[in-house]
C-alpha cells in the first residue's frame, strides 16, 4: 500500500480528477493549501505598501492505493496536472509507504479497506 500526496495547481484539479477516475481511482481527499516552490510568490500592493513573495494557492490531494494502482495513479496525476509541455509551478507528487488502513464503518483492515 502506498500513500500518495500530490500538490497541484488549483485550476488543474478537474483534469486530475477526471484522469484519476479514468483509471478507477475514485477515493481522495482534497484540500486548499498555500505554498511556494521554484515559482516563488506574487508581489501584492496595498496602498503603496509592497508585500513581496506571498505564498501561492495550491491544491493538495491525498490518495491511498494498493500496489497495483500506484503507477496508474502517478501517471494520471501527471497527465492531468501538467500545463502544456510542463511549467514551473505545476507541482509535485510524493509517494510514501503506508503501514495500515482501517475502514471505520466496518472495522476492515489493510488492502481491502482502501478501495
Amino acid at each position, binding site marked *: 500500500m502506498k500513500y500518495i500526496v500530490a500538490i497541484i495547481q488549483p485550476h488543474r484539479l478537474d483534469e486530475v480528477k477526471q484522469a484519476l477516475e479514468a483509471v478507477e481511482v475514485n477515493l481522495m481527499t482534497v484540500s486548499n493549501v498555500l505554498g511556494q516552490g521554484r515559482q516563488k510568490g506574487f508581489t*501584492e*500592493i*496595498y*496602498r*503603496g505598501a509592497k*508585500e513581496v513573495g506571498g505564498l501561492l494557492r495550491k491544491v493538495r490531494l491525498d490518495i491511498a492505493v494498493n500496489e497495483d494502482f500506484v503507477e496508474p495513479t502517478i501517471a494520471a496525476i501527471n497527465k492531468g496536472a501538467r500545463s502544456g509541455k510542463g511549467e514551473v509551478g505545476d507541482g509535485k507528487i510524493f509517494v510514501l509507504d503506508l503501514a495500515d488502513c482501517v475502514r471505520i464503518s466496518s472495522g476492515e483492515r489493510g488492502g481491502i479497506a482502501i478501495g
Partner: protein
Amino acid sequence: MNTGDTAWVLISAVLVLGMTIPGLAFFYGGLVRRKNVLSILMQCFIIVCVISLQWVLFGYSLAFGPDTGLGIIGSLKWAGLNFVGGQPNADYAATIPHQVFMIFQAMFAIITPALIIGAFAERMKFSAFLIFTLLWATLVYDPLAHWVWGMGGWLRNLGALDFAGGIVVHVSSGISALTLAILMGKRCGYAQQPFRPHNLPFTVLGVALLWFGWFGFNAGSALGANELAANAFVTTHVATAAAGLTWALIEWYHHGAPTVLGAATGAVAGLVAITPACGFVNPMNAIFIGILAALFCFIAVVLIKTKLGYDDSLDAFGVHGVGGAWGTLATGLFAEKAVNAAGADGLLFGNPHQFLIQFLLIIIAPIFAAGMTWIIFKAVDALVGMRVEKKDEIVGLDLTQQSESAYTVIE
C-alpha cells in the same frame, strides 16, 4: 414647514447613519487582519449606541444650543431635547421640524469619532475606547460643531464656510487620528511583517456604501429638497468619481497596477474633500477638487506616512485629515455666490478674504483637536490604559476584547 424638505432630511439622516454602520464598519473591517474584524464592527456599532444617547441628553445642546456668550459652547438649555420638538427652529432650518434637524445632526456626531477608529485599529482596549469616544465627542466634536455651525459660534460669525463638515467632521477626526497613532505607537510587528487586508471585498462594499450614504451627508446638508441639494449632490458625485479614477491612475503609473483598494481609497478622499465645498462650488470645479484630493491624499498615505513612520493603521489621517484640509482650502478658492447666495465668493471669484478665513480654519481646528486629544489620551491612559497587552494584541482583539471570533474554520 415643508413636507418635501422634511422627507428629504429624514431620508438623509438614515443615509448618514448607513455611512457608519454598515459603511465605515465594513470599510475598516475589511482592512484589518481576520483576528480583529469584530473589534472594528463592535466599535462602529457601539459608537452609534453611545453617541446617539450622548447627543439627545446633552451633546446637541452643547453644539447647537443657545450660545453661552463667547461663541465657545452652547448652553444646556436644550439638554434632554428641551425646546427641541416639532416646531422648526428658523436659525438652523426653517422648513423642517427642529427634531428632524437634531436627529440629522446626530448622525454626523456619530460618524466623526467612528472615523478615528482607523488610527488605533488592532490595538486599543475596548474599555478605553468607550471612555475616549465619549470624552472626545463631548470635548472636541461638540465645541467645534458649535464654533463652525452653532448660532453665535465664533468661527461661524467670522464667516467660515463648511457646508457638510470638512472641518468639523474630517479635519477634526483626521488630526485626532494622527495624534492618537503617534501617542499609541505602532502595532506589534509593524513594517516587519505583512499586514494584509483580510477581506478587500468587504472594504469595497464599505466604500460603496459610504459613497451611497454621502449623498445624505452632503446633499442632505442643504436641509431641503431644493436647487442647493441638487448642486451638492452633483458636485459630490463628480468629485468622487474624479478622485477614484485619479488614484487608480497614479498607482498604475507609480506601482505598475491599478488596485481596487486604491480606487476605493481615492473615492473616499474625493468624498471627504468635496464635503465642505459641495454647496458652494460648481460641478466643474468639483472635478478639479476631486483630482487634487486623490493626489494629496496619495502623497500623504503612500509617501509621507512611510517616511515619518507613524502607524495610522487604516489611514484616517492621510485620507480624512489631508482630504478635509484640502477641501476646506478649496472652498476658499472656488466658492461662488452664483452657486449659493448664502455663501461667499472665494479667492478665484475676487474675494481673497474668504481664503484667509478658510486657512485660519485649518490652523485653529487641528491645534484644538490635537491638543484636546492629547489631554484625553493622557487621562484615559492613566485611568484604564489605552493599549491592550502585547499578548492580547497578538492573539487578536476579537477573542481578547469581545470573546468571539468572526470566522469558524471547523464546524
